[in-house]
């Protein structure tokens, strides 16, 4: 393969050649660019859109909702820029006083309150990604030490860990989440840090992270078990390296490729799990937009689904946002795997 020779005859390192292989994979490049755009839009899009449109995602606009059946307006409509309602004696919505300015709703309104769907979608992306990435970090923090110890030392620790993970993985994950959110939410729900980390994000990330940590634990354990008797580990023992050094300096780097693949895959799963949490009615506070809460606002929760028939737009925009992000993450995960193990089948 021509990949091995770099500039000036220096052989490329494994990371550089992996990166090169990834750059040559067109689908993966497209997916990475897409992810970059999604990330950028989620981080800054809300603020920029607020500046341009002149309203933010939390302001309710009574005139963005039809008066009779409380259905939100569709995309590209201009609505009266006021939060005062002008009702007649029967409670019907009348046009506002003359001279009231209008403001643009590019993707329509989000529900009965009439908030801007576009800005909520952009802000919601940030919250959803915070939860998804946070959960991956949490589960790696649990899985790495547990998996390393179980795989390296074996014996009783390993037996306990593997039995426990097997038992728990046999059971549907969602039920744990339902149970945990119903019983634990009050004690963890209050953690927040201004608008950067809205209320409930930490709870969601901790719960999802804790209950999804079983898969990487098994992954790490299996890899360490095969590496434990490798020659370089024996050599380490021979020169008197302690277990901590072997694990941290010599075995951990071997896990990076597998964990990288798993992480991007897990972010995708976690985005969908966050939607599930919203459907359970747990999740992030209802006033904070996430992709999940946008959908559950439209469709109701598990306990009371379909409070009303939502408009097509209310479902379409969050679903497409999730679809694009999850597809891109899957493709990146696949691309990383292919670039790391070019010998595996496509």
């Amino acid at each position, binding site marked *: 393969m021509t990949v091995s020779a770099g500039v000036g005859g220096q052989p490329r390192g494994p990371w550089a050649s992996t990166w090169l292989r990834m750059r040559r994979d067109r689908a993966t490049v497209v997916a990475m660019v897409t992810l970059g755009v999604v990330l950028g839009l989620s981080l800054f899009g809300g603020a920029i859109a607020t500046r341009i449109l002149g309203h933010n995602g939390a302001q309710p606009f009574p005139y963005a909702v039809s008066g009779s059946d409380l259905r939100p307006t569709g995309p590209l409509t201009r609505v009266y820029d006021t939060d005062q309602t002008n009702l007649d004696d029967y409670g019907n919505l009348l046009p506002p006083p003359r001279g009231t300015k209008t403001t643009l709703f590019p993707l329509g309104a989000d529900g009965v309150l009439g908030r801007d769907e576009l800005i909520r979608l952009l802000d919601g992306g940030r919250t959803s990604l915070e939860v998804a990435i946070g959960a991956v970090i949490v589960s790696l923090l649990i899985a790495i030490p547990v998996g390393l110890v179980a795989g390296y030392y074996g014996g009783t620790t390993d037996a306990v860990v593997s039995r426990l993970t097997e038992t728990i993985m046999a059971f549907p994950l*969602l039920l744990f989440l339902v149970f945990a959110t119903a019983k634990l939410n009050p004690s963890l729900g209050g953690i927040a840090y201004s608008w950067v980390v809205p209320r409930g994000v930490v709870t969601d990330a901790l719960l999802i992270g804790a209950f999804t940590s079983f898969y990487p634990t098994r992954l790490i354990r299996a890899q360490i078990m095969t590496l434990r008797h490798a020659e370089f580990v024996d050599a380490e023992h021979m020169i008197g390296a302690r277990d901590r050094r072997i694990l941290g300096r010599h075995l951990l780097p071997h896990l990076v490729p597998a964990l990288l693949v798993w992480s991007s895959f897990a972010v995708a799963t976690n985005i969908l799990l966050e939607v599930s949490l919203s459907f359970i009615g747990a999740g992030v506070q209802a006033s904070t937009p996430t992709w999940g809460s946008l959908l559950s606002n439209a469709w109701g929760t598990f306990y009371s689904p379909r409070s009303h028939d939502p408009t097509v737009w209310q479902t379409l925009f969050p679903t497409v946002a999730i679809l694009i992000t999850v597809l891109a993450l899957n493709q990146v995960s696949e691309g990383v795997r292919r670039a790391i193990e070019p010998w595996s089948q496509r």
Partner: protein
Amino acid sequence: MRYVAYAARRTLAALFTLCTLILITFVVYWSLPSTPAQFVYPQAQELTRYQLAHANDLLGLDKPKPEQYVDYLWQLAHGNVGRYWAGSILVNNTHLQQQPIGPTLFRSFRATLAIILGGALLVVLLAIPLGALAGTRIGSPADRVISIGTLVGVCTHPMVLGLILATTFGYGHLNLLPSGGYCPLLRGASDSCGGVHDWLLHLVLPWSTFALLFLALYTRMIRASVAETLPEDYVRTARSKGAGELRVVSRHVLPTASLRVLTMVGMEIGTAIGVCIYIEAAFGIPGLGSLAVRAMGGATSDIDLPYTLAIVTMITLVVIIGNLIVDLLYAVLDPRATLDSPRRVNKGMVGGVM
């Protein structure tokens, strides 16, 4: 004989898992604060100490904890899944009148089983031709369309997918199919609908949702397996004997893939039940999943212990028995397989279905 010995060993291991999960449920229950006396005296605002003690006695919670656990297992061994705490009626201040959990549990189990089995059949029926088509033409436009197209189902939330299907095809828009509810296959006295026709009609959309979710995983696996098998010698031999493309793929290539599919099915039974929770919520089917959500979540903070235990037991049993059947089938289909060697298929990672 070796199958019998293997089945016995596996059953023992499965029973151990079941006992562990029940123990975990008990431990979690004991460690969470709750006032079960509320179930016995639902009207009482403030419970007296006598009432608390009396209720604990009636519910059997004043016994030592190991005894409660062993008692439950003993009852379970006799096929008794227990009675609800909720809705208990105190009779003469001496004993409780409680509803048995069994009938509801088994009825909802049948609904869930119908969704899973029918859905799995649909997945297999769709995934085999799609996977074979993509696998024989890797990199072609057809392959790309199939690979991306099946992924779309996985990348949408199952609940949303179900709701979209329900509102689109159900009553209200296209009026093609019932948008929710469940009709049992065998109509009972209290059922409003039933019979094969109603049953099928009500399950078409849940099955489609199930299939859309799992299609990507299985299509990918069959595709990979077909692509790996095509260069094998025996495939070339079959070709050189003059077998047509269709015969080569269906008789010589696909049987290899079937083993992988089987292993995968065994690994995914828990996931399938998890997915059923969404499907049941979206279509309003009273199945095991919706029963479980009501038992574990719900608005009340008090946990109905027997109800929760019954759900945990039922789901675990489904997973365990399903796994057992798959493993035995595998041993029968692949005589080379040593029964105890672990079979790990590389679960072609697709982020989405959980």
